[in-house]
């Protein structure tokens, strides 16, 4: 706990931008600060390497403090801190020492901490005392950490499966519903939906994931020699729905498009045919109940760019290397009210059977993958878990 106090002081004072004394606690704090200060392109790696030498010799009581230091840390720092914790943890086990189980448990249960160190705390608890970990699992069902809630969902799936075997189908359905409500991982969601459908229940996966299904499409524009990715076509300058643009052969206008694909696939081949070396645009309006952070989660095997309210979020010029749900997670800030999402999707020249697709799927969610739904015209739903 002494380390925790020092660390808190350090965080309050801006992570160590002052001269340190030579006491062990100062050295500890300075070392933690060195890890947290690691930046891009290996900046701070040398100092971090020295800090690792010091921190790796810390006692087991430092583990909760090092986990706390992961809060708000960048991914480099989180991994350095993880490395230090691993060394201390293993050394303690090798020496036959006991781990600070209560402190680890308290850390785990405090949801104000970041999800990764909390999941690591759970892992350490399980490696220390599997029985304790097992008893904690049911309480993790709605956890902000997808890894932790996965544990609880797995438990529910076993319960539901047992109920089915006992012919207690009504109870099984309710347990599966509970599991589905919490599930964020595709494999678990698909397992649950399959079981529920087997039991005669409807499952709306589109709603669960929050795929956007109503769009306006315009195209085709050219993508000869893959140049369309960089070329700025009309919709990038003016995406008003009543605008007419110069397409490949003729002027083109926005067309309404709605997908009934369960996973929200928007397929340009449907309105335009299986074209090659072409570019298309899709736009939709997402109405947010509040100003809030969110993630645009895209799956696409064509080259693509995405704009939110006219601002480029990200783009990637890779073709036909694979596609999956949540392939790209793009943090954005939604405005309260209407937000215009514009997507550019480029099809290339390849002729193989597996290069026919000219499509994407997009959903809006929070960092855990919980769907955020656009307010409907009646304003009845904002965020459905």
């Amino acid at each position: 706990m002494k380390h925790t106090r020092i660390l808190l002081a350090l965080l309050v004072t801006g992570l160590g931008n002052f001269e340190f004394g030579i006491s062990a606690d100062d050295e500890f704090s300075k070392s933690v600060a060195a890890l947290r200060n690691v930046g891009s392109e290996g900046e701070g790696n040398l100092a971090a390497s020295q800090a690792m030498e010091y921190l790796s010799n810390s006692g087991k009581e430092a583990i909760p403090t090092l986990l706390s230091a992961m809060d708000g840390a960048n991914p480099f720092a989180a991994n350095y801190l993880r490395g230090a914790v691993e060394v201390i943890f293993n050394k303690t086990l090798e020496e036959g020492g006991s781990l600070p189980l209560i402190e680890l448990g308290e850390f785990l249960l405090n949801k104000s901490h970041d999800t990764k160190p909390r999941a690591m705390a759970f892992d350490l608890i399980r490696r220390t005392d599997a029985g304790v970990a097992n008893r904690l699992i049911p309480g993790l069902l709605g956890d902000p950490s997808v890894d932790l809630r996965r544990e609880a969902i797995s438990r529910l799936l076993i319960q539901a499966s047992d109920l089915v075997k006992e012919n207690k189908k009504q109870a099984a359905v309710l347990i599966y519903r509970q599991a589905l409500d919490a599930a964020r991982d595709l494999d678990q969601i698909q397992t649950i939906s399959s079981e529920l459908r087997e039991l005669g229940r409807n499952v709306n996966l589109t709603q669960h994931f929050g795929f956007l299904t109503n769009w306006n499409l315009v195209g085709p524009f050219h993508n000869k020699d893959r140049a369309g990715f960089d070329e700025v076509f009309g919709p990038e300058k003016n995406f008003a729905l009543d605008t007419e643009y110069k397409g490949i052969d003729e002027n083109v206008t926005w067309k309404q498009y709605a997908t009934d694909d369960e996973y929200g696939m928007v397929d340009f081949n449907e309105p335009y045919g299986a074209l090659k070396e072409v570019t298309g645009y899709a736009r939709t309006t997402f109405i947010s109940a509040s100003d809030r952070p969110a993630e645009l989660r895209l799956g696409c095997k064509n080259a693509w760019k995405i704009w939110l309210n006219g601002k480029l979020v990200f783009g990637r010029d890779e073709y036909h290397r694979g596609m999956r749900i949540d392939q790209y997670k793009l943090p954005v800030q939604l405005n309260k009210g209407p937000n215009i999402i514009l997507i550019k999707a480029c099809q290339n020249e390849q002729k193989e059977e597996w290069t026919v697709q000219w499509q994407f799927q997009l959903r809006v969610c929070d960092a855990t993958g919980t769907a955020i739904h656009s307010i409907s015209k009646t304003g009845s739903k904002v965020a459905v878990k």
Partner: protein
Amino acid sequence: MKKHLLIIWLVVLAGRVLAGDWTGFRGPFGNGVSDEVGLPVKLDIEKHIAWKVELPGKGLSSPLVMGNRVFVTASGGTRQDRLQILCLSSIDGSVIWHRQFWAMGSTMCHSKTSIAAPTPVTDGASLFAIFSSNDLFCLDLDGKLKWLRGLTVDYPNARNSLGMASSLVLSSGVIVAQVENDSESFVAGLDKRSGRNLWKINRPKSANWTTATVHKSKSGKEQVLLQSGKGIHAIEPDSGNVVWHYSDGASTIPSSALKGNILYVPSQGLTALKISEDGKSFTQKWRSGRLRPGTASPLAYRNHIYSLNNAGVLACADIDSGKRLWQLRLDGPFGGSPIVAGNHLYVFSEEGVAQVVDLTAPEGDISGKMDLGEMIQCSPAVANGALYVRSNSRIWKIARKTRL
């Protein structure tokens, strides 16, 4: 005095690569050739499995062997985002240490490959491990993290939705990371002490899974031979400057084989390039369309070149002319590359069948075969008179019983 000398010798020895260690992709020279003797040639699963150990995750990277330690990487977790680095005892397979990190880059890849696809490299003092997510970790040999890089965090479009696989190479103290893909494609030379960029050069925007080869000229100067769809670029390891360029294209899956000053490139079949003594140029020695390798990299050994095609046919050719001498059908397909030791070629099929080919037989002869029963896509390591090979779930040591 003798005791002191022994201590000094041990200190000097510490941190050095010993002859016989397997220190990177396809061994210390990146050519798949080992001078080990005494490997089993008639494989028997009852006799020759010294040990097998479960791994905590998937992978097709090759194990490394340093003295009595075996290093191997794996990836686990629902999203394959737990990057694992293990150190095992070569004696009994027991875990000496096991480290786990969070993936910082993309963990999407084709179902057949893994996030632990690239093979690590060691200089005898540190282990440098890169994953398909372009996350790179430097640990000391006792498992203490020295530094790390998240190359996709730094360069967000440096990724491949099928997965990355190029292994790291070390040249003149520089770690060369080949991060070639359809979008933000580059090669970086990293300072092995800090992991920081010494240089970074743009590369062809095209997916590439090959591993570079290091060539040392007579003067001792090294150059890194980068293979891509654009051919071979020979670069200086300290600057990334291109010294010469062979521009007739090359495969993006099997890597080149180097023997002396000749580079055997999977290009237009197989093309032999003779590198000049000063390393500043090359000439084409021969080309054969009949020696086209499949996924496995070719292998140059003594007077012959060996190439394994996608149909599982091993071709042997004269190393000076490229003239095909014989062919031998093996049980394929092969995702990993063969290695050779003691006049015998060892290769593991994707079906998990280990096969030994006696290269002294007039047209090659399968002297041993053993079914490990699991998909294997890695190239084996050879050290301590043993082979080390891994699947998605375990690692085996294969040796003669007498060496246990």
